């Protein structure tokens, strides 16, 4: 009996497999130095997550923090111990987090405190109860609280990612998976799997549903899956293209691409009535629509000018204005949460990068340096963009801060990862 308990404890202590590993390629010049002391375990048995590790990784991935290594710490205090600020100044830590976990009847209790080393005071302390399945959630919650108090920005560690992986054995023998994970890539969960391609995943504004394109019986269609129940509803499956869905900010409509009338055109589907409204009419390609946060405009890619460029449509009047004028390939645009900027794929010197453009000043900045970068998706607090990129034979995910100063690579373990989409906030 005891042996079994130990075996389980060991199994739980092992790191989860197939998670994305973080690698920072570039950070801000003066990151905040933070020491997260390993949380004291106040009861018997191991826990399946190292909360301190999770928190310091989260903070470091934002590019705004740098962790102070455990091995340099002169003491490992808990929330009840005295914190000697001199010791932490000695190892150049500006802030120190201490904490503990204890099992109780209902699950467990996490206690933690954030110390300001130079101010020599506790900024705040909290008690967070939870059950064994929510340990990672608590880690993300604590990360959000620390991030918010030290940067003044809302944290994104409790949000989720949606992405597609492909495992290829030959041209016609592949496995595609739609995967939902934590914002740090942890707890990956396959929510849909197919031998045919899965494309264009998109979140509903409340984060409860996702839309995507997949092939059923060799015919493409757009489907909406409710995450809590797994229930799948077909939106369209017309002959020809059914692709690139994007929810309206109120979650009631979906803008998508259909070619049932001969050419790829944008349509708006009313999800309640099923009514379809055609939005564009041109013999060129119109696709990759994305709704603005205020719901008034739709940004989309069109080849009507000979090359793929971004255009903005006024939803009410259906008038169209070209947005991008630099470069011969600008596509797959998405708005930042404030609606003032867009991020998109921009080709320059024959390489594909992620670029950002301020819609007021029209200033463009190129955010990435790798090649074949695509599918940019902005975090709900507007600080970071996640995108797909390539490295030799592999496709992997990258993160870049909106000012281009912080770059983080999330190398995949084995599969080819593509089309990352950042969830909205869940509250």
């Amino acid at each position, binding site marked *: 009996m005891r042996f079994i308990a130990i075996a389980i404890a060991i199994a739980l202590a092992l790191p989860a497999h197939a998670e994305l590993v973080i690698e920072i390629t570039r950070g801000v010049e003066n990151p905040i130095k933070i020491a997260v002391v390993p949380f004291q375990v106040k009861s018997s048995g191991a826990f399946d997550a190292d909360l301190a590790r999770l928190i310091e990784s989260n903070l470091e991935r934002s590019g705004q923090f740098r962790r102070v290594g455990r091995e340099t710490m002169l003491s490992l205090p808990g929330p009840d111990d005295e914190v000697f600020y001199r010791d932490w100044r000695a190892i150049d830590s500006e802030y120190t987090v201490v904490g503990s976990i204890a099992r109780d009847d209902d699950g467990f209790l996490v206690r933690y405190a954030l110390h300001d080393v130079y101010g020599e005071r506790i900024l705040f302390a909290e008690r967070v109860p939870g059950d064994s399945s929510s340990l990672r959630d608590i880690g993300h919650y604590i990360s959000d609280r620390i991030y918010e108090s030290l940067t003044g920005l809302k944290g994104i560690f409790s949000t989720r990612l949606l992405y597609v992986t*492909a495992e290829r054995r030959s*041209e*016609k023998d*592949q496995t*595609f998976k739609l995967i939902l994970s934590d914002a740090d890539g942890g707890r990956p969960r396959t929510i849909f799997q197919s031998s045919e*391609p899965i*494309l*264009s995943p998109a979140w509903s504004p409340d984060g409860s549903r996702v839309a995507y394109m997949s*092939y059923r019986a*060799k*015919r*493409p269609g757009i489907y909406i899956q409710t995450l809590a129940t797994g229930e799948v509803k077909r939106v369209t499956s017309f002959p*020809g*293209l059914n*692709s*690139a869905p994007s929810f309206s900010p109120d979650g009631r409509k979906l803008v998508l*691409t259909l*070619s049932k009338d001969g050419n*790829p055109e944008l349509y708006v589907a009313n999800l309640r009535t099923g009514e379809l409204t055609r939005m564009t009419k041109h013999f060129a*390609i119109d*696709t*990759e629509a994305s709704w603005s946060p205020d719901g008034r405009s739709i940004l989309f*890619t069109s*080849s009507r000018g000979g*090359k*793929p460029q971004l255009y903005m449509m006024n939803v009410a009047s259906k008038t169209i204005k070209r947005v991008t004028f630099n470069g011969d*390939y600008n*596509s*797959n645009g998405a708005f930042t949460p404030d609606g003032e900027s867009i991020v998109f*794929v921009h*080709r320059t010197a024959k390489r*594909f990068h992620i670029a950002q453009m301020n819609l007021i000043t029209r200033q463009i900045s190129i955010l990435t340096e790798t090649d*074949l970068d*695509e*599918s940019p998706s902005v975090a709900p607090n507007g600080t970071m963009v996640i995108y797909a990129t*390539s490295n*030799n*034979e592999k496709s992997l995910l990258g993160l870049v801060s909106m000012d281009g100063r912080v770059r983080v690579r999330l190398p995949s373990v084995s599969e080819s990862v*593509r*089309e990352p989409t950042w969830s909205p906030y869940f509250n």
Partner: protein
Amino acid sequence: MKFLKQAKVAGTIVILAVLAGCAGQVNEEVTAPAVEPVVSKETASSASTNEVDSSAELAAKAKAKAKAKADAAADAERATAEKIKSKAMAADTLFFFEFDRSDLKQDALNDLDAHAKYLTADRSAKVRLEGHADERGTRAYNLALGERRANSVTRYLVIQGVNRSQIESVSYGEERPLSLVRDDSGWLRNRRVELIYQ
């Protein structure tokens, strides 16, 4: 690629063989009408001597001959159909495109003509066209591009007399590359329409 070459060689041999067979049959067909009047004259002259008997006999003979001829014609037709089919089977089933373009290249037309001839000759034959793009550019755009490429081929076949109902087309965008080589040589092979007989 190697397989394709072998298929082409095999196809050419089949065509040659069929052509040789046809040559003989075509001759027969040509000579048949020339013989005809002579036969009817003969029968006419002999008919006067032995009317009742020979007329029945002759009618049977003529019937046999007509049947032989019909058979020959049917054979010839079958041979032509075979020829058309084997030509189509030997023709290329991969059609390549330029970057961000969906217009057919001139060198695709001969092979498409062979497919069109077969599909118009045999209305029960069906094809599936799969449009593809290389990995450069964005996925949804490439999906649309793949469809346009498949549509270019569809349109050409329909103009050549193929029924729209014989063609099914789908786009896979950049999701099913033939080549995983990440340079011009690989991308060139991935910007394609695949024609698959069902």
